[in-house]
């Protein structure tokens, strides 16, 4: 159990670092994959909705403090993301045999939710909702889902 927590923490910091250092190189304008969402989805599908929500909150908290962004926006977005991902938790099937398309769909949905709330809460003034939804949230969610494909394939093997 402790070993699992330690490994997950290490993976989290590696992904956080990659999110802030490597992702800018592979982003297309503001369309960028969210690596932390991948971790959150995988964890939430294993531990359930309540713990997924709590872990999402913690991920958001750390992300806000180290990214230089508005503290609270990431916390809110990742908490909802953890909750959303945890909704798909199945006690009888703890994430191991989940189908490829379903997992891809969950990652896409959770990423969409995350991007949407993160953008809304970080903006200082009211922005165009269609811009927030389509240009900032949808395309980044698609990118995140695409990036997750090799990971899903690897995980299934």
């Amino acid at each position: 159990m402790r070993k699992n927590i330690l490994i997950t923490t290490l993976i989290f910091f590696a992904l956080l670092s990659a999110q802030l250092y490597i992702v800018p190189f592979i982003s297309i304008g503001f369309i960028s994959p969210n690596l932390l969402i991948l971790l959150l989805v995988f964890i939430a599908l294993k531990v359930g909705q309540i713990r997924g929500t709590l872990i999402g909150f913690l991920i958001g908290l750390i992300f806000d403090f180290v990214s230089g962004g508005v503290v609270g926006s990431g916390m809110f977005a990742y908490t909802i993301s953890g909750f959303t991902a945890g909704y798909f938790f199945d006690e009888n099937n703890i994430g191991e045999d989940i189908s490829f398309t379903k997992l891809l769909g969950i990652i896409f949905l959770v990423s969409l939710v995350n991007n949407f709330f993160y953008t809304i809460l970080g903006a200082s003034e009211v922005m165009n909702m269609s811009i927030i939804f389509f240009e900032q949230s949808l395309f980044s969610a698609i990118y995140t889902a695409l990036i997750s494909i090799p990971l899903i394939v690897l995980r299934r093997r």
Partner: protein
Amino acid sequence: MRKYLKKILEERRQYFVLVVLLFISLAFLPLNKGEKLRNIKRYAFGTFAYLTYLENQIAEFFTNTKEIERLQKQNAHLMLENNLLREYALENRELRKMLSFQDSSAYPLLPAKVISKLISSIQGNLIIDRGENDGVKTGMPVITPEGLVGLVVETFSEFSIVRTLQNSNFKLAVEIQRNRFAGILGWDGINLFIKNVPTSVIVKEGDRVITSDIGTLLPPQISVGVTMKPEKTVSGLLGNIFVKPFVDFSSVKNLFVVKVLQNPKLNDVKLNLLSGE
């Protein structure tokens, strides 16, 4: 009643946890300007920035950046000088003598590297490898040889956070160099724009936009970008002018902190954009 509530709480625990955590998250939003939160941020940020800094150093181990740095510094100086020369061309000689403009090319430039970025359409931030130990202070402008990148908003001993122009919390006093029209530049998540410009102001596509003399936080005549096609509002009286920045924010890596504060006294007053979170 108590039993009933307990039952509901047990059955809907996940929603209860969600609501509590969301409230806590929202409670943090107004605390962003507070000193307590800033101290926690300082500690967390400082620790993590070392990690990314190390990664950065490893990545650049095999590249000779000294010469690139020197040339970029020279370019940045030339950009500032070039802007000043444009100003001279536009102003009358006598007026220029009277005003005795400061030679902006003499601004001390401190080379810095971007160690990490927050890719966000509304919270454009950069973290640079220069901090208080190098003399960086909150409010100092950050430029590249192409033009203005942003403003230092937080400083730590070894690192600083730069708020870029692509941050919806960043509002900047600018002017169109050709006709001297001054306005406030903002970011809407997609475009940089000068809001509510009277349609009587003639703006041509490609007009240079520079920081304004009336700005309180940035030295004047730093290149910002060029105007794009003006957009008229429904009323037809006012419009937005979109601005294409000179700096490519997605690829910016090496930059310079201009070690000058527009007015040190104003630094303590916490004006408009610095308190705009």
